[in-house]
């Protein structure tokens, strides 16, 4: 296991900039998640680290040692690809054994067998070992390709959306499984996803990528509680954060086109800004200072999402369990003032 560092990595494909001055460090044994929408450059980052793509600028360091120009085989990496990449002409067993049989490692067969079997057991694919991979279902294929990574003990695991093709239930159980494997083996892992729930639940630290730029790096709590930009604030958390234009007037915050007014915080705020309120920070209370009308109720079982209209703006709030609110109800509510998020007109977080 190793510490992996990216120093000012840029990658251009002709006139497309896939990565733009990306720097971060993954500590030994850390589970680092790269989160970003499609086309953000997540796969490109992994490919550059693996050596499948040569960066246009910058350095890749493994334990402080430069990896520039080192061929993929010598980097000692395990890569779970976004598309299935199981060798179609081989059985599942041979697929799992393939990295161990490589001329770089030359593991004796008696050593391969227990390792393959252990990986198969962890991923619950023991019964598939003799099968040809073309006959597997999507979920089975994905588990085999994860298996091909975990039979080894590489310097780093690179996983490119390994759970994206699975159904919700399997995804959830594999998420727990992967996290567990990672923690027990203390393996350094770089996990790529566009799913914020995967990122929040699995990561030690998250890096948010957008259009090739790394916007914020931090623990899930950092990212959720102190999003660096409106983009990050909207990317994490379901239901989405309430984000509204607001302005300051005589010590009061007004949400534009809305009846919502709040006392201004102590710090210095520009006259116009964006106000972010997490749905769970909107509390329905009989003695609340604000009022609105229920315009939509979405019961999810564990919680219910309620859309409140105050003026022309709608605020989303969540209450736990099934709620008794009906469409058209007039309710009073409050917001937790210490937990408001302020962003300037460019979307950058304002520290107060």
């Amino acid at each position, binding site marked *: 296991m190793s510490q992996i560092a990216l120093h000012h990595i840029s990658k251009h494909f002709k006139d497309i900039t896939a990565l733009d001055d990306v720097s971060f460090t993954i500590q030994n044994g850390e589970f680092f998640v790269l989160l970003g929408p499609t086309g953000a450059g997540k796969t490109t980052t992994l490919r550059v680290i693996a*050596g499948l793509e040569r960066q246009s600028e910058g350095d890749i360091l493994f334990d402080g040692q430069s990896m520039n120009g080192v061929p993929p085989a010598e980097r000692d*990496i395990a890569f779970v690809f976004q598309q299935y990449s199981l*060798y179609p002409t081989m059985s599942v067993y041979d697929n799992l054994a393939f990295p161990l049989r490589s001329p770089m490692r030359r593991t004796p067969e008696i050593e391969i067998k227990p390792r393959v079997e252990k990986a198969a057991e962890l991923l619950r694919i023991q019964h598939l070992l003799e099968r040809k991979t073309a006959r597997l279902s999507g979920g089975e294929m994905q588990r085999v390709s994860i298996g*091909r990574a975990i039979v080894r003990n590489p310097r780093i695991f690179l996983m490119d959306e390994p759970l994206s093709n699975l159904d919700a239930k399997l995804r959830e159980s594999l998420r727990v499984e992967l996290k567990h494997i990672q923690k027990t083996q203390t393996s350094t892992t770089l996990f790529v996803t566009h799913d914020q729930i995967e990122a929040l639940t699995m990561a030690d630290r998250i890096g948010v990528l957008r259009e090739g730029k790394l916007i914020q790096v931090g623990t899930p709590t950092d990212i959720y509680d102190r999003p660096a930009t409106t983009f990050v604030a909207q990317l994490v958390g379901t239901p989405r954060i309430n984000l509204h234009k607001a302005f300051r007037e005589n010590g009061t915050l007004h949400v534009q086109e809305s009846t919502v007014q709040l006392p201004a915080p102590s710090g210095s705020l520009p006259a116009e800004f964006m106000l972010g309120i997490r749905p769970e920070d909107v509390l329905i209370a009989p003695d609340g200072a604000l009022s609105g009308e229920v315009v939509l109720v979405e019961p999810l079982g564990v919680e219910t999402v309620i859309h409140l209209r105050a003026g022309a703006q709608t605020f989303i709030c969540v209450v736990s369990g099934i709620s008794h609110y009906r469409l058209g109800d007039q309710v009073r509510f409050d917001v937790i003032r210490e937990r408001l998020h302020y962003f300037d007109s460019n979307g950058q977080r304002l520290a107060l």
Partner: protein
Amino acid sequence: MTATTPRPTFEQSGPRLPVVESIRVDRVHPRARIAGSVRATLAIILSLISLIPVFWIVLTAFKTPTDVTAIPPKLIFEPSLTGFVSLLSDMRLLSQAEQEERSQQPDLSWVDQIALQIGRAINGPSQYARQLGNSVIIAGTSTLLSVVLGLLSAYAFSRFNIPAKGDLLFFILSTRMLPPVVVTIPIFLMYRSIGLHDTHFGLIMLYTVFNLSFSVWLLKGFIDEIPREYEEAALVDGYTRLQTFFRIVIPQARTGIAATTVFCLIFAWNEYAFALMLTTQNARTAPPSIPSILGSGGIEWNTIAAGALLFLIPVVIVTFALRQHLLRGVTFGAVRK
């Protein structure tokens, strides 16, 4: 309004549109079934029609010269090996007296007896066996070379950033645009002056060059279809480019390799004009030899048919051995993209 939709009965529950081809649906619409059998019948009829010449060659090869020219043509006759014997041996005509004398000899071998039936005696083996051998050597080696070289360059064209890739590929293809006959004379003169005339190597090189453009293009099509992810996965798993090529690419390109092999083999095996011009004795292949079997007396159709039959067999064997790869190979890959 509660309009109860009638529960579909068992008969109604099959697919509503005719399922024309399916492996999973157990109930095939009757219309689709009829269409399927019509199609199968048509396919069988068409293949029978195209097999008629082959069938006739086989019949003729086993006829005696009198049966061949019989009118109306005989479908049922006593098979004879006369054609094959005269094909593979060099014979002379016997006079009436000699024939009678020979028929008295008790120790005549079965070949001699067959020769005697058509009034001849055997001098020795003919050139044809040797020429067939030449065909095997020349077509086999040039096919092997075309496929191996083609595979390597197709892989390079498919996977690497080669400067002026498009131009190079076009150049390779353009060698096919010239009708080969146009260059026979210049090549004949060149070959004669550099000593390649009537050599195995000369023909092998020529056929390889001709086939290479075809094999590069065909194989590139197949390799393009193999996702790069497989190779990248193997590279990350600790294999070098070359090992990846052998362990990942070749197994997946089997279909393409089989199809290319058969096409190259058929070209090299059937090639006539160059073989006729560039060889005389030593390296002469079978195609230019078959017409020269014509015979000294009348046209010996049974001998020619025997020659053609022997000539067909090797290609049939190879094609048959590769048939399971071929079917997919001919229908996919080459045509797409």
